[in-house]
């Protein structure tokens, strides 16, 4: 199918006094047009830095040192041209047109991402005026229309409101209205509902699903909540220590996770639909970001660790039969030579 954004071998490192933290370390994944990609992982796995790298918003001491971000940009003649966002100057005209226009982003803390001293109407129209060739009055009309689309009651009056006068859920609606005002082809949502209560979260997710279908845009949905991903995403990418360790169709991954990290994450969740006396835990902790581990980054915590293989060979992504990509040596020749039964076992867990 039609690939909208392809991230290849992305490397974003933070150069700190303590050493180099490889926040994003050769991440590879792709998003198809009109689809929802869920990016999951625990804190510090590089989800947000990946998003900021795509938007070219990584601030020093962070730098994107290598990789490609191929964005397929629609042209006037109906064709699309592929451009590498990393080749564009981060503050140049072209990148500024894409950022907030064709690729928009919403954040975890809706109130902190809105300006406290500007009226929300002005904040939305500012974005429209930056990206579209319209007059101020037309921009205001679009703004009211957007506020209606995100189901904000009394949209005209709300243009004059300030962020502190709105609840958290309302602020997130305003952020979504602003992000969608220029019809982006990709919306990056970085933990958009984490700070919200469950019933408000349900409202926002419902809204996002509706708008996604209406506007035919792709969403990169970043979250730590596997349940939300199961509900929202078509595709899932699981990240661990700056790498995508598994990517595939959401239904496949939740039915039959392949990577030991994905398996362990799903096992560690308390579930309402299952009785679990004790929860499975992942031994150890996420390694220190400055450490340089040899072999697979997960080998120190992995339940299926094979000595002499996992701590020596760096796994490359391999494609399994259901079009799923896994970065794990269990599914390669290395594991079969050592212990032939292992790969079999894991598929049933």
């Amino acid at each position, binding site marked *: 199918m039609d690939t909208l954004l392809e991230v290849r071998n992305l490397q974003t490192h933070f150069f700190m006094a303590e050493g180099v933290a490889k926040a994003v370390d050769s991440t590879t994944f792709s998003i198809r047009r009109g689809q929802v990609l869920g990016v999951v992982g*625990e*804190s510090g796995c590089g989800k947000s830095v990946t998003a900021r790298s795509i938007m070219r918003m990584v601030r020093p001491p962070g730098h994107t040192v290598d990789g490609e971000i191929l964005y397929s940009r629609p042209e006037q003649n109906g064709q699309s041209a592929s451009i590498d966002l990393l080749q564009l100057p981060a503050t140049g005209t072209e990148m500024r047109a894409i950022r907030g226009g064709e690729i928009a982003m919403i954040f975890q803390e809706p109130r902190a991402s809105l300006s406290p001293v500007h009226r929300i109407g002005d904040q939305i129209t500012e974005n429209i005026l930056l990206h579209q060739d319209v007059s101020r009055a037309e921009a205001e009309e679009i703004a009211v229309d957007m506020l209606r689309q995100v189901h904000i009651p009394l949209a005209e009056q709300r243009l004059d409101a300030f962020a502190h006068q709105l*609840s958290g*859920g309302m602020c997130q609606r305003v952020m979504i209205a602003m992000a969608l005002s220029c019809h982006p082809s990709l919306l990056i949502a970085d933990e958009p509902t984490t700070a919200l*209560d*469950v*019933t*408000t*979260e*349900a*409202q926002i*997710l*419902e809204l996002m699903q509706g708008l996604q279908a209406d506007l035919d845009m792709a969403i990169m949905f970043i979250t*730590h*909540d*596997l*349940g*939300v*991903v*199961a*509900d929202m995403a078509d595709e899932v990418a699981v990240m661990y220590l700056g790498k995508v360790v598994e990517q595939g169709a959401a*239904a496949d991954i*939740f*039915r039959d996770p392949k990577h030991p990290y994905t398996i*362990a*994450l*799903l096992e*560690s*969740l*308390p*579930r*309402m*639909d*299952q009785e*679990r006396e*004790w*929860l*499975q*835990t*992942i031994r150890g*902790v996420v390694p220190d970001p400055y450490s340089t581990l040899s072999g697979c980054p997960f080998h120190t915590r992995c339940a299926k660790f094979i000595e002499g293989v996992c701590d020596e060979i760096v796994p490359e992504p391999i494609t399994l039969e259901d079009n799923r990509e896994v970065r794990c040596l269990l599914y390669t020749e290395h594991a079969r030579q050592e212990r032939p039964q292992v790969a079999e076992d894991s598929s049933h867990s």
Partner: protein
Amino acid sequence: MLEVNGLKKHFPLTAGLFSKVVSHIKAVDGVDFALKKGETLGLVGESGCGKTTVGRLIMRLYEPTAGSIQFRPHGEEGEDYDLATLDNASLRPVRSHLQMIFQDPYTSLNPRKTLLDIIGEPLRLNGMSRGAELEDRVVEMLRLVGLRPEYITRYPHAFSGGQRQRIGIARALILNPTLVIADEPVSALDVSVQAQILNLLKFLQRELDLTYLFIAHDLGVVKHISDRVAVMYVGKLVELADADDLYRKPLHPYTEALLSAVHVAGPAQSHRERIVLEGEVADPSNPPSGCYFHPRCRYAQDRCRQETPELQGVAEGRYVACHLADELDLAGAASG
């Protein structure tokens, strides 16, 4: 062991030059429940519903506006205290039976103290032990919560979020409390660490015969750890039942909506009906008339707008505050 009756806490809202009290935020507005020894009661609700305030009232970190909190740390035969009315001096001996675990492991530990000081402080303050004896107790606690005894001289900054939560648990348990109030103890943690802490809390409960009041907003976590669950909405309990019953067949429409909003991280769940509530949580300083939930309730009738429903027993151990509880047939969490 603990019996809470008609517990209320109204925070005054002031305005103007002389801080005249203009109205009250009814954070907790008439809450009744009881806790048996050795059980876990989960207290759930959205932010601002008053669940944390209930925990703090039992700890007497706040002065209750009204109501009683009967506490019998030694069971039926033992002493009976009313935590709501005791003065500070008479509270002191009772307090060692009551401990609290907090949400944020980063801000609830003093960064300038070592683990020996942090975990041993309750013992020192109560004059129960000192010197080598104190150190031995702290080492014992560290082992119990799964931390290495060598850590005793380290400072909190050297530990991860999960380890800090273990430190907080060690501090809470060093006085051998009978009741532990855990206020969102795992909501700041990543899932893999959350599982470790939940297992630890369950293990400690069995080892030490603890009673938990487990305050949380995550219904999956609450189901896992609780024997019974109480649901709060705008300062009142709307439903109280055995955890399994409540999840299988909720009786209050708010519980139904909460359950439907939970996402299950598994396949084939995606077509479950999600009940999206209209509007927002009612303002506790100016709650709606009748049932506080009626503006958002899809079953609301005229009666719900006028009369406030009381929490009533409908079956053995099941309580619900809804006029329509007998008539409605509500959907529970899908069981697989």
